[in-house]
């Protein structure tokens, strides 16, 4: 098998257009990214950004119009058969055969990947144990709950101990408990040397689960790095202050904001919904300065909060849109007038 220290995924200049009813839709307009071995890599973006299309090209389901992609040491265009042997894939639709039992599903996958009958049985029982599916193994998958089915599908993806495991929106539709379990299982996979490549439109999934993140929008990578790096690079901490009524009457928020903008560590101040939102370079030090100003002016504080930047802030800085809005607009399928949201649906 290839050295896991080598890059698990290398993508340069990946392009893909779809032609639907005489209209050409640019799904990928030059994706570049590299995923190192044994890391969890998250592809974050709104619906229609090109996540699924990228994943489908990397898993040999779709061919790119231009660009290079190497996965687990083999070229997806020239050696798709080698790539297929080395990767695992958990699609958005799941892919477990619901008319068969969980065990039958696993055994078939094992045999297809070249395990012997005995080897497949051994690995099957091992995974049934790891994923807590032992008691369900003999039951038709149709009777499984959403979480149980997802666990089986992940087990199907790693039956042959792949070098890279691809997951397309693995936690969509899962309740918080099952989601947390799946995260733990993916982390354990990373510990055993498997590279995990997942797409998500959940901010926290990219932020907390992924070692590195690529944010994609309109078929392009707009930011790439560890979640911490990205957040530091693009936005500072924010402090939100909601002043209460002073003895002298309601405070002049505008004047207050201007004054606070001059305090130490504060970079910008805006008035928002009766509160003052401050962008600061270091929240801990800025807090003291801000409360000094408020005390001097005799303004009581009704509420104060500190927020660390999120990946949504990164997305906002790059695109001028919030990731949530972008996702919701695409999800309705009516489009936002940019002609972009339909992309992933076409790709799918």
């Amino acid at each position, binding site marked *: 098998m290839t050295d896991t220290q080598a890059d698990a995924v290398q993508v340069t200049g990946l392009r893909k257009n779809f032609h639907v009813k005489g209209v050409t839709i640019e799904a990928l307009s030059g994706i570049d990214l590299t995923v190192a071995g044994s890391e969890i890599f998250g592809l974050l973006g709104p*619906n229609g950004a090109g996540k699924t299309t990228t994943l489908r090209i990397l*898993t*040999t*389901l*779709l061919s790119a119009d231009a660009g290079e992609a190497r996965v687990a040491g083999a070229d997806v265009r020239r050696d798709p*058969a080698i790539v*297929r*042997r080395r*990767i*695992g*894939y958990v*699609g*958005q*639709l*799941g*892919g*477990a*055969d*619901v*008319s*068969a039992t969980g065990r*039958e599903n696993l055994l*078939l*996958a094992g*045999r*297809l*990947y*070249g395990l012997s009958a005995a080897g497949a049985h051994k690995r099957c029982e091992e995974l049934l144990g790891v994923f807590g599916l032992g008691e369900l193994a003999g039951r*038709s998958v149709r009777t*499984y*709950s*959403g*979480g149980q*089915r*997802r666990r089986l599908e992940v087990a*199907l993806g790693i039956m042959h101990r792949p070098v890279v495991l691809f997951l397309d929106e693995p936690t*969509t*539709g*899962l*309740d*918080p408990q099952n989601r947390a379990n799946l995260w733990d299982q993916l982390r354990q996979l990373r510990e055993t040397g498997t590279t995990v490549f997942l797409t998500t439109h959940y901010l926290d999934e990219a932020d907390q689960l992924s070692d590195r993140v690529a944010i994609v929008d309109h078929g392009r990578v707009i930011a790439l790095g560890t979640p911490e790096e990205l957040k530091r690079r693009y936005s500072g901490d924010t402090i939100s202050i909601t002043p209460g009524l002073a003895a002298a009457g309601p405070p002049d928020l505008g004047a207050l904001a201007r004054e606070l903008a001059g305090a130490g560590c504060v970079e910008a101040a805006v008035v928002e919904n009766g509160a003052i939102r401050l962008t600061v370079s270091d929240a801990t030090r800025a807090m003291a300065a801000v409360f000094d100003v408020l005390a001097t002016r005799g303004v009581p504080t009704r509420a104060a909060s500190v927020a660390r930047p999120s990946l949504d802030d990164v997305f906002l800085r790059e695109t001028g849109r919030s990731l949530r809005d972008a*996702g*919701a607009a*695409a*999800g*309705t*399928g009516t489009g936002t007038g940019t002609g972009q949201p339909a992309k*992933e*649906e*076409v790709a*799918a």
Partner: protein
Amino acid sequence: MTFALHTGLFFRRKLLETLRQPVWLVTGLTAPLLYLALFAPLLRSLAGGPAFPPGHVLDVFVPGILVLIAFGAGMGAGWPVIWELDTGVIERLRVTPGSRFALLLGTAARDVVMFAVPGVVVIAIAALVGFHAHWGGLAVLLVLLALLTAACSATSCALGLTLKQIGSLAAVVTGVQLPLTLLSGILLPLSLGPSWLRVLGHLNPMYYAVQASRSLAAGSVVTGTVGIGFLVTGAAAALALWWGTRSYQRAMVLSLTVLMSSRNIYHRAATVGRSRLVEPYVSRSRRRCDMTSTSQPVIAFLASGAWAGPWP
């Protein structure tokens, strides 16, 4: 070696899927038996008449029923394939090293079994009520019709993977099967009809299978008719298997939105299990699967009333 293993694995998977729905076996048998019981007696008065081939009425009719069973068993393959496409099974299998041709062949092999079991039962019952069984010819006949079943099965899979929707597949299959069956002389020999009908029949690949079947059932194995039947059916099977394999290589879900109408629903219902959201769709297509069994061509036939037309 790997290919044979994969074909065997896929065959087993498909066979288990069928055996879990025993209703298929029942419907596969009832239609041909109803034909024997309720339609064959009508032919008795025709036998011995002008342009009707010599011999017992069942000798002419049983090979036709067998072709009908083969056609039905093969054409049913496309429905579950759409279902597999929608649930991501095919996508997952496409990412494994599993051979696409093996995937198709496994399904075709299952359908051959689905043809052979009711086929043999029909032959046995017909033999009890007057059908002159020429066992050597019948053995070759089963091989020919196994080929026809494989051709129909691969065509149905390819259609399912191309059309991607149950409704479209149903429209195409029912639209095609009526002219194909009518112009093959399954129910009545085309030699009874006017010359233009016979000319049209010669454009229908299934016509040659029916002709060869009649010859084989009569015990004449080494004839030109049988040779042409094998040639045409074999070519059709090769073409269909090529098309089916190609379709598997490119199979892709039409659109996730068709399945999940909107991801927004998904977001709002994040705590509801995935299966519950997809389930209504699932059970709908499943019901259609059950409806569309081997009896379907027969039902369409009877419902159309077309077969009743030329009767005096």
